[in-house]
């Protein structure tokens, strides 16, 4: 069993703050409350920091370490189809797609929320519909994300949730990829 340091403190802090803030805005706080917009801006600021960290951060945090590649995606789906158990150290190829989807859509969520708030929605009447659609899409994505984390944890035999808390992936040596 080898311990690979994969998620640096910023990534972990980013991930769990995003979880808390998104859950708060989406399930706890009323959309019309005065807190909704500030929390939304905090989320946008978090993602902006994450984007910068994707350029200058630790190796597995960088976008260059998890490019979206068709061949890698197909090879991961093939591994799933054959129940092969090779584990990626950083983001898996399908994981990369989900990360990019979530980063982009949550950013767009913040943007559409801002546009919808201008002069009580009079300036961009479509912004509120877009905002509501994006909420549904991001919630759906998160359900898939959590499901995929449990599924992949089982398939590759690595506790991915623990890794996001401790920063280390514990992978049997013969199973680690790249």
């Amino acid at each position: 069993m080898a311990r690979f340091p994969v998620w640096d403190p910023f990534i972990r802090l980013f991930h769990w703050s995003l979880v808390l803030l998104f859950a708060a805005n989406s399930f706890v706080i009323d959309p019309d409350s005065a807190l909704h917009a500030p929390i939304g801006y905090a989320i946008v600021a978090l993602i902006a920091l994450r984007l910068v960290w994707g350029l200058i951060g630790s190796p597995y945090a960088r976008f260059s370490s998890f490019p979206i590649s068709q061949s890698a995606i197909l090879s991961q789906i093939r591994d799933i189809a054959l129940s092969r158990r090779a584990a990626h150290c950083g983001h898996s190829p399908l994981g990369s797609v989900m990360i990019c989807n979530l980063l982009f859509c949550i950013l767009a969520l913040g943007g559409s929320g801002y546009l919808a708030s201008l002069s009580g929605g009079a300036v961009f009447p479509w912004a509120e519909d877009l905002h509501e659609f994006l909420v549904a899409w991001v919630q759906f994505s998160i359900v898939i994300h959590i499901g995929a984390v449990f599924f992949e944890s089982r398939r590759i035999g690595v506790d991915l949730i623990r890794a996001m808390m401790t920063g280390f992936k514990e992978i049997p040596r013969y199973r680690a990829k790249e």
Partner: protein
Amino acid sequence: MTDPTKPLVLVLLIAAQAFCAVVFVGDVMADLFGTAEQEPEGGHAYFEALATLALIAAILVEIRILLWLLRRKAHLEQALSTAQSAVQEVIDAELDSWQLTPAERDVANFLIKGLNTGEIAAMRGSAEGTVKAQLNAIYRKSGCANRAELMSQLIDTLMGQRSQSPSTG
């Protein structure tokens, strides 16, 4: 020899349909359980729900086809000539008849390619003990005692196949 079922096309199709399914499910939920913001749609909503269920069923079937396709293609990557893929087809048919699990089938393909237990374990990211258990399951299901007997059985099948259809390949 173009293959209409490219895995990537299927992946994109599944993604696009999943996107539509989310939109439709949201719409159906709003129609059936939502607050009466607009006039209730009545029976129409049930037809929509039915159509959405059909879409989700189609997505599940497509996922099964995609996984099946990738399993089939997994060991054909280097088989460029038609003769090689014809041999692979015969082997596939034989493996089909043993009713192996996807994992066992993967191991069996590596076994036929001549990899030893350690190499198969490395290719699959499994422990060697796991591969040994899978090899035993393969021997049991194929009715062979060991690798040599299994290879003989395959060669036997290949030769039988060749005499039946000499034009193949």
